[in-house]
């Protein structure tokens, strides 16, 4: 299949390792990666903060970049960006777009998948040949869990990883407190939620806390770094991309 890769603005700019892992993983599974070079941002931050007129050009650009019928599926390593494409692009297009935008949005929306959905639902793969001999705990981000309803797909993928020591995160489905601009507008509340999440992560003794969204991981990872925790954050894609021949090595050196 020809797979359109959407890096997401956050992934492209701040967390390229997660996007790179997504690309390598999909390539390893035998599919062609297409990266439309003019892609930018889905507009989620705008819509969630209350701005729907401003992101119209972003919605249009997304639909144009991935509208190409030869692209069979659009994959992105972010549950919340998929949520935006699926639920908010149609809303913005309906309200502030034209007929062309509406049909463009509808076409792309139906072939857009979050990474674990793509692997399990489209490729029917749970064992992706990964090797990751570390203690890992998984945080199901809210948008993946509730808006997309990915259920236990990420966990099924993780359980199939060779060598992994997967430990359950207590109160896993509790929100980490990120919420986009919530983390800044309501910093005190966001921090209180983060503290509880960090305590639960600490109780697992995991070396790695993983999730399907770099934004939540940025928040959790920032908190872990501040308290000098021994646990680090890693995107689900980075675990699934690691193999015996190309094992995971912390990439700080490349930074």
């Amino acid at each position, binding site marked *: 299949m020809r797979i359109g890769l959407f890096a997401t603005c956050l992934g492209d*700019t701040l967390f390229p390792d997660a996007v790179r892992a997504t*690309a390598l993983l999909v390539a390893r599974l035998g599919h062609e990666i297409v990266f439309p070079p003019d892609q*930018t941002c889905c507009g989620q931050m705008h819509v969630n903060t209350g701005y729907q007129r401003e992101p119209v050009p972003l919605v249009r*650009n997304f639909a144009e970049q991935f509208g190409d019928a030869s692209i069979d599926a659009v994959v992105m390593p972010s549950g919340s960006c998929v949520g935006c494409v699926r639920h908010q692009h149609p809303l913005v297009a309906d309200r502030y777009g034209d007929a062309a935008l509406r049909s463009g949005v509808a076409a792309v929306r139906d072939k857009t998948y979050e990474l674990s959905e793509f692997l399990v639902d489209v490729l029917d793969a749970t064992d992706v040949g990964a090797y990751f001999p570390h203690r890992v705990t998984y945080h199901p981000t809210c948008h993946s869990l509730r808006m997309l309803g990915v259920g236990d797909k990420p966990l099924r993928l993780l359980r199939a990883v060779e060598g992994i020591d997967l430990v359950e995160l207590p109160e896993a489905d509790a929100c980490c407190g990120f919420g986009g601009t919530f983390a800044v507008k309501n*910093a005190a509340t966001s921090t209180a939620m983060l503290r509880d999440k960090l305590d639960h992560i600490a109780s697992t003794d995991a070396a790695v806390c993983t999730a399907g969204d770099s934004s939540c991981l940025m928040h959790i990872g*920032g908190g872990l*770094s501040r308290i000098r925790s021994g646990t680090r954050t890693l995107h689900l894609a980075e675990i699934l991309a690691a193999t015996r021949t190309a094992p995971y090595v912390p990439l700080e050196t490349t930074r």
Partner: protein
Amino acid sequence: MSSTFLGMPAAPPRSPYGAGNLRGERTFPEAAAHELGNDQLRANLHRATRTIRAKRLAVTAELPDWEELRAAGAAVKNEAMGRLPELLEQLEAKVTEAGGTVHWARDAAEANALVTELVAATGSREVIKVKSMATQEIGLNEHLESQGITAHETDLAELIVQLADDRPSHILVPAIHRNREEIRRIFLERIPGVDPGLDSVPAELAAAARAYLREKFMSVPVAVSGANFGIAETGTLSVVESEGNGRMCLTLPRTLITVMGIEKVLPRYADLEVFLQLLPRSSTGERMNPYTTLWTGVTPGDGPQDFHLVLLDNGRTAALADPIGREALNCIRCSACLNVCPVYERVGGHAYGSTYPGPIGAVLTPQLAGTHAAKNDPNASLPYASTLCGACYDACPVKIDIPSLLVELRHQTTERTGRSAERLAMKAAAAVMGRPKLYTTAQRAAAIGRIAAGRDGKISHLPPPLGGWTESRDITAPPRRTFRAWYASQEGRDALAAAAAEHPADTEMPEEER
């Protein structure tokens, strides 16, 4: 006589500024920061919300048709909101037919004046009250007080709140922020003649409250209640409760005055079948609540002989005119969304500044009272009091999509605010992100953020308005290379080719050997 054409009726009013309890004094972030310092509150909320979540999940999971029930609940409420004027008139006719009197109150001031007049007409200077959110919303107790009438709350938790001169912090468990020792002290100070040796065990506290309340039930001739449901078809009203104190108020006094928000009307008696399953399971996590009282007008020789129904608007018609408000009016006040909300769990109900806290309060309060009634209206901060995690939507028995309503409310708020620093920033961001060339230039500029980082590659202090972030979180310095730069590089191409070569179909016959 000349007649004047008055034109179309004006847009229905929101609840007027400064009346009732639909607006706090501080914005949500300010109030929340204050509440977060209250460790007792946090501990109580943590314990209580967890217990109730587990109970709710158990009793909703055991019903094979729970999802169908939720769908039915949503459908009936949607129907009721769509036919509201007609249903209310039907309700009025039926109540009147059954010997009751129906009054219409446009806002809090009208409702308060009406109730005061009705109480005054009985000659009593005291009323007993069934726990009611509508009367809390309009500030009825305070108004009666100012008119020399004492209102006694009879719900145990409401009584505690009232005796402590406090405000409720939860729809269903108004005193969730108090512990037993505090309650013991409140009782010792405020209940006349209470045993000075009162212990803080729940049974003793309940007994002290009971002795106090029994005396009120037997002596006060007027009761004021709210209503969970009003049935248009029959004129029947209903109160659902756990303690039986509501039943006392609804049956013992001579006069009963019920204040009901107009959105509480249901078309048919049979609709109760749906809601009497949804409500107790969602609110207290019980299969059925202990007391369900239903009454229709006046029954000669049995129960109150004088019954008044006050139908309260107070911003509801305004809410109904808006798709967001219309959906929010479907709420049956079960409090499930509060109990699962991670924000509510940390800050408690008072931070919302309204009778209606939690996720639904963040929607309903702005809809009933508006968000721009004054400069820096605290209600304008409510739609942002959520991470949009979606737990509320999953829990709601009538399937109100609260996260989507919050996003829509935020949109309304920004549309009304007009120009602001935030809008300019959003515009600028969209302008950059909408133009790929500018975007890549900006990405390069972001990489300059590396110089803000310490030797360990962490940024631990940001200037405002982003300073809130670095109070508790570091930021990793931007990487040297973006994904797109890697993808376009020779290294990227080689890595992708190598990964593709690992696919079984290819490894059988690697390129080089072909």
